[in-house]
């Protein structure tokens, strides 16, 4: 996609008080995500809109249907999607120290074997890119990262684990992430970070915002 083409947007109602605006195509698009963020910023100004929450190339809008007619909102979303996207201040670059492998990175060996790579090669590929925080959500302070090396793309586990620990550095499909709290997840665990992503008493409670950038730094590789 070039910067001046506008991806098509599918708008569907999520019950009476929310809608999903989905522009996801076959591959994740940074330009599309910029447009999603811009749409979210604009919709937050609309009376009756309670929250605009970016997902991955999609956006959920929560609103009060007794104040803002769902059909009118749908029209507003479709119209504002086409408005030009102005530049956005570049986010912060944050380094995330990771201990790869070992008991806190229990999938590293099997993941490497499945990819026909050594654990060192997997770590090299995982630490090479600067990732973008595309979206925050799903769990308190969870970040969806774009920029994963396609060679590390891996379908999620068939059976999710019931408790993946806080700090787990994980990969699922073509996305990378970090567990902010201990919770169920079907993603693969490559390592562990001591960096805290979420503190409800901090302001803001989530360490990262959409648009921030992350670099993983290998502290050690355990076998």
């Amino acid at each position: 996609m070039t910067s001046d083409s506008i991806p098509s947007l599918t708008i569907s109602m999520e019950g009476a008080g929310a809608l999903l605006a989905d522009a996801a195509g076959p591959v994740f698009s940074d330009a599309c995500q910029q447009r999603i963020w811009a749409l979210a910023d604009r919709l937050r100004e609309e009376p009756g809109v309670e929250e605009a929450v970016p997902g991955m190339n999609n956006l959920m809008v929560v609103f009060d249907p007794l104040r803002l007619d769902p059909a009118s909102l749908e029209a507003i979303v479709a119209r504002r999607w086409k408005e030009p996207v102005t530049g956005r201040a570049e986010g912060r670059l944050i380094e995330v120290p990771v201990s790869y492998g070992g008991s806190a990175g229990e999938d590293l060996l099997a993941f490497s074997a499945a990819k026909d790579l050594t654990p060192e090669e997997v770590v090299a590929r995982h630490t090479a890119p600067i990732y973008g925080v595309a979206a925050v959500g799903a769990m308190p302070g969870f970040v969806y990262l774009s920029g994963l090396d396609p060679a590390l793309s891996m379908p999620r586990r068939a059976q999710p684990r019931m408790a993946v620990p806080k700090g787990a550095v994980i990969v699922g499909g073509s996305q990378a992430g970090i567990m902010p709290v201990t919770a169920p997840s079907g993603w693969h665990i490559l390592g562990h970070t001591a960096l805290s992503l979420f503190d409800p008493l901090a302001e803001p409670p989530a360490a990262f915002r959409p648009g921030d950038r992350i670099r993983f730094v290998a502290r050690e590789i355990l076998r």
Partner: protein
Amino acid sequence: MSIRIISPGLSTTVQDLGRPGYYHIGIPLSGAMDRLAARAANLLVGNPEEAALLEVVFMGPEIEFLQDATVAVTGAELPPKVNGEEKATWTSLAVKKGDVLSFAFLKKGARAYIAISGGIDVPVVLGSRSTYTLGALGGFEGRKLASGDVLPVGAGRGAAEGRTVAGELRRSPGAPAELRMLPGLYWHRITEAAGRQFLEDTWKVAPEADRIGYRFKGGKPLEFVPREPPFGAGSDPSNIVDACYPYGSIQVPSGTEPIVLHRDAVSGGGYFMVGAVISADMDLIGQLQPHTPARFVEVTMEQALLARNDRARLIDRIRQALA
């Protein structure tokens, strides 16, 4: 001003009307699953509707009052006892310092609300006192209550004993429970026949039914329209590119067992949704026991908005009755 938990029951948490506005950092709504019952309990004891109270599941706690108070139990038919003497639900009760509140066995419903004059005075976290156990935040130390916990209670003037909410102002699920839903979202991903079948089947509440979501079993698996999986979505036809999940949305992993996401659900993920249960009926889901039969009933947007208005009027009538 405080209460002491002698025994906590099965899973008792501090809740209020919830913590909206934080989906963007991954925090769900939390708050009472049956909001109408929670509002009514607070109104009965003279509290603001949004005061924090206790949500009780299936089995009641045993609580000692360390000061005089007004108490009311609403929601499920879980009869309260004061010093062993059975009392009415949906009615304000006067308790004295040293009195013990306990409960008889559950007769109907799933969740009861215990309001205490003054409200449970735990710290406000991100705008709410509701417990969100996954995030270990809000409520009493971010967790369900345990024996020996002493909970602070705010100052409240209380209300007269014997105030009650008339039966016609209460709502409880029918048999089977009829859950009104708006099809949408990824409804187009299932075949027309599968969509019809989904609405015709009688489902049963599965044992996995909690504040995160209610799973339903017993209907036929959904047949999908073939597709090319988009980025990040798994190969399973029920996987989607990760999107936000609102409260009430009906997700169907692998197309087999629908899960209606409730107050503590994760705010997003990669499973497709066929629509959403309307907010007026989310209260009813909070009162369903496992193995209860339930049906999904399709409504139009217009009907969903009328239902929302009806519920707002019902709350108004309770307010007026207790004013």
